[in-house]
C-alpha cells in the first residue's frame, strides 16, 4: 500500500476515523451473518457460542421434544448465581450478624426482598426443572447410544442441586436454618445406628466423625455456619460448574441432542436453506459434507441426516433467548408475589413443632421418621444407585428418541403411575393407622427396624414391580419406564405427605387447620 507515503499524523487520523469499524471488526471477527458460511463462522468464532454446533438438527428445535427443560434449569442456575452475588454484598456469615443481615436485605436494602426471593425461588425451581429434565430424558429414551455417562453426570448434578439448596437454607440462621442443620448433622451421624448394633461405635464412629466434620463441633455454632457458607458459595457452585461444563461438552461429543431415527423436517416450519444441488461425487446428491462431517466418531453430523439441519444462527439462538426471557420473567413474577420465608432467630432450646425441613426434603423426612439411617442415607443412596444404573441395565436400541417408545410404553407409564401411587399411599395409610414395630414391641432390636420398615418395603416393591414388568413385556425399556415413573410418584406423594399432612409431633392431619392449638 501507500502507507509509507502518508505522514504519521495522517495515518493516525485515518485510524481514528475508522475506529468504529475496526473495533467492531476485531470484536466480531466473522462479519455480518448473511450467508451460511458467515453464520457458521459466527458460532465457531465466538467463545460463548462455540459450545453449540454450527448447525442444529430441526428435531432439537422442536419445543414439544425437549420442552426446553435443560435450558430452563441452566438459566435458573445463572439467575441464582447472579442474585446470589448481589446477596453476598450484605450477607455476613457470623451467627450474630447473619440473621440481621438477611433481615436488612429483606426490609432495608433497595430491591433486597426481590433479589432474595429471586435467589430462593430460582434455586428451588431448579429442583423441579432438573427433575422434569430428567423425566424428559427417560421418557424420550435419550440416555443411550453414547449418552450413558452423561446421564451419570446428570444424576450428580441433581444431587448437587439438592445439596446447594439445602446449604443455602441454613445461611439465614433462623429457626429453620438451625433445626435443619441439627437434623442434617444427625442424619450424617446415622451410621451410628449400625455401628451401635455391632458394638464398634467406640472404635469406628464413622457417623459421629462425619457429623463433627460437618458442624466443626458437636452442636451447630459459628464453625458450622462457616463451613456451610463455604460449601454454599464456593465448593458446590464450583463443582456444579465443572460438572455442567462436562455435561454440555458431552452433549456435543455424544452426537447432539437425541432424535428419532426417522425424523424429518416436515411440519417444523423451518426452511432448510443449506442443501444445495450437488451432482456426482462419492456421496449421494442432496448431501453436503464438510471436513468435520467426515471425521471419525460421534461428531454431530456423521451419518446424521445433514439435510435436516439448519444453521444455529439464528434458529437455535432465538429459541435459547426466548427460553431465557421466559425463565427470567417467570422468576421475577413469582418473586414479586411470593416472599421467601424468614422465621425467628435461631433458638437452640426450642425446636419448632413440627420442625420441618424445606419442602423438597419432606419426602425424605417422612422416610427418616421410620429409620434415620435408612431414610436419610440407605434409601436415598439406593434410589440414586437405581437412577445411575438405568442406562446400563436398559440397553435396547429401538425407539431411540421417541416419547414413551411406543403405545406400550405409554400404557406402562400410566400403569406404573397408578401402581406406584397405590403402593406409596397404602404404605403411608398403614403406618399412620397402625404404627410400626416400635409401637407394637417397644423392646424390639433396632436391627429389625433398619432391615424392615415401610421405606424399605416400598423400595423393594418398586424394584420387584419393575422386574415384573420386564418379565411380562420382555423389554428392559419398559422396566426403565416403570421404575422411573414409580420413583417419581413416590417422591411426589411422600413430599406432599410431609408438607401438608404432617403436623405437630409429626402426627397425621388432613390439613393445617386441624392442628391443635398450643
Amino acid at each position, binding site marked *: 500500500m501507500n502507507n509509507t507515503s502518508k505522514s504519521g499524523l495522517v495515518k493516525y487520523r485515518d485510524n481514528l476515523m475508522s475506529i468504529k469499524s475496526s473495533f467492531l471488526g476485531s470484536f466480531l471477527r466473522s462479519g455480518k451473518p448473511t450467508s451460511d458460511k458467515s453464520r457458521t463462522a459466527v458460532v465457531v468464532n465466538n467463545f460463548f457460542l462455540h459450545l453449540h454446533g454450527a448447525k442444529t438438527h430441526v428435531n432439537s428445535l422442536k419445543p414439544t421434544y425437549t420442552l426446553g427443560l435443560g435450558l430452563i434449569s441452566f438459566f435458573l442456575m445463572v439467575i441464582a448465581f447472579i442474585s446470589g452475588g448481589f446477596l453476598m454484598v450484605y450477607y455476613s456469615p457470623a451467627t450474630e450478624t447473619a440473621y440481621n443481615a438477611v433481615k436488612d436485605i429483606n426490609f432495608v436494602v433497595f430491591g433486597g426482598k426481590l433479589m432474595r426471593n429471586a435467589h430462593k425461588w430460582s434455586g428451588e425451581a431448579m429442583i423441579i426443572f432438573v427433575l422434569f429434565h430428567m423425566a424428559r430424558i427417560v421418557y424420550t429414551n435419550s440416555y443411550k447410544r453414547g449418552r450413558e455417562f452423561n446421564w451419570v453426570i446428570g444424576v450428580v448434578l441433581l444431587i448437587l442441586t439438592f445439596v446447594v439448596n439445602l446449604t443455602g437454607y441454613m445461611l439465614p440462621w433462623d429457626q429453620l436454618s438451625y433445626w435443619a442443620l441439627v437434623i442434617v448433622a444427625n442424619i450424617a451421624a446415622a451410621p451410628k*445406628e449400625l455401628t451401635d448394633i455391632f458394638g464398634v461405635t467406640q472404635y469406628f464412629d464413622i457417623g459421629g466423625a462425619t457429623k463433627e466434620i460437618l458442624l466443626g463441633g458437636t452442636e451447630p*455454632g459459628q464453625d458450622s455456619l462457616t463451613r456451610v457458607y463455604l460449601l454454599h458459595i464456593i465448593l458446590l457452585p464450583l463443582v456444579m460448574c465443572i460438572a455442567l461444563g462436562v455435561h454440555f461438552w458431552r452433549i456435543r461429543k455424544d452426537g447432539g441432542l437425541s432424535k428419532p431415527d426417522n425424523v424429518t423436517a416436515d411440519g417444523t416450519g423451518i426452511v432448510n436453506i443449506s442443501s444445495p444441488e450437488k451432482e456426482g461425487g462419492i456421496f449421494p446428491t442432496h448431501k453436503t459434507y464438510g471436513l468435520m462431517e467426515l471425521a471419525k466418531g460421534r461428531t454431530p453430523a456423521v451419518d446424521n441426516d445433514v439435510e435436516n439441519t439448519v444453521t444455529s444462527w439464528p434458529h437455535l439462538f432465538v429459541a435459547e433467548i426466548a427460553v431465557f426471557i421466559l425463565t427470567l420473567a417467570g422468576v421475577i413474577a413469582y418473586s414479586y408475589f411470593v416472599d421467601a420465608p424468614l422465621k425467628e432467630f435461631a433458638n437452640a*432450646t*426450642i425446636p419448632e413443632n413440627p420442625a420441618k425441613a424445606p419442602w423438597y426434603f419432606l419426602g425424605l423426612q417422612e422416610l427418616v421418621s421410620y429409620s434415620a439411617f435408612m431414610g436419610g442415607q440407605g434409601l436415598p443412596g439406593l434410589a440414586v444407585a437405581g437412577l445411575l444404573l438405568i442406562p446400563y441395565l436398559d440397553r435396547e436400541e429401538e425407539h431411540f428418541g421417541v416419547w414413551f417408545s411406543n403405545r406400550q410404553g405409554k400404557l406402562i407409564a400410566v400403569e406404573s403411575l397408578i401402581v406406584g401411587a397405590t403402593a406409596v399411599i397404602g404404605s403411608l395409610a398403614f403406618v399412620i393407622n397402625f404404627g410400626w414395630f416400635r*409401637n407394637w414391641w417397644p423392646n424390639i432390636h433396632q436391627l429389625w*427396624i433398619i432391615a424392615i420398615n415401610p421405606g424399605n418395603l416400598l423400595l423393594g416393591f418398586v424394584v420387584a414391580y419393575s422386574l415384573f414388568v420386564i418379565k411380562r413385556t420382555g423389554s428392559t425399556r419398559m422396566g426403565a419406564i416403570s421404575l422411573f415413573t414409580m420413583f417419581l410418584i413416590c417422591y411426589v406423594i411422600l413430599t406432599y405427605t410431609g408438607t401438608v399432612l404432617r403436623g405437630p409431633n409429626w402426627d397425621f392431619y388432613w390439613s393445617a387447620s386441624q392442628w391443635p392449638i398450643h
Partner: protein
Amino acid sequence: MSNKAGEKEKVSRRDFLGLVAFGAAIIGSISALAGSFRFVKANVYSEESKQFKIGSIENFPLGSTKKFDDKNVFIFSDEAGLFAISAICTHLGCIVTPSEFGFQCPCHGSKYTHDGNVIGGPAPRPLEWFEIKQEVDGTLTVDAAKTVQQGTKYLFA
C-alpha cells in the same frame, strides 16, 4: 522374593524399581489426601463446656423436675436419688418435651417413657443419662459428656 532360578523371574530389576516408585507415589498421595481430610476435623471445638453446675441439693426437693434449657438436660429427684436425663432425641437431635407417658419429640414423633426408653417413633436408642457429681463445697455438677448406665441415680448428703 523369587530367584533367578526358575520361571518365576518375570519382573526385571528396572521394572521392579519402577513399580516400587509407583507404589510409593500412590501411598504418598493417599496419605496426603487422608491428611487433608483430617485437616477439616477440628482439634478444638469453640463450644461451652459440657459440664455445668446445678447448685446445691436443696434446689431439688423430692419429686421435683427441673429442665436446664440452655443445656438440654432434665434433673429429676425421687426416693432413689437425683438423676439427669438428656433432652436431646436420639433420632435426629430435636429437643423432647415432657408428656404424660414420659417424653415426646416434636420432629419425627419419637416417644419415650419416664426412664427414657423408646416406646414409639423412629428413635434408635433410649435417652442418655448423665453423671452427677458433688463438688467439695457440696454443690452439684452435671457432666453431659459422660453418659452413665440407664437407671443410675445419685444420693447426696
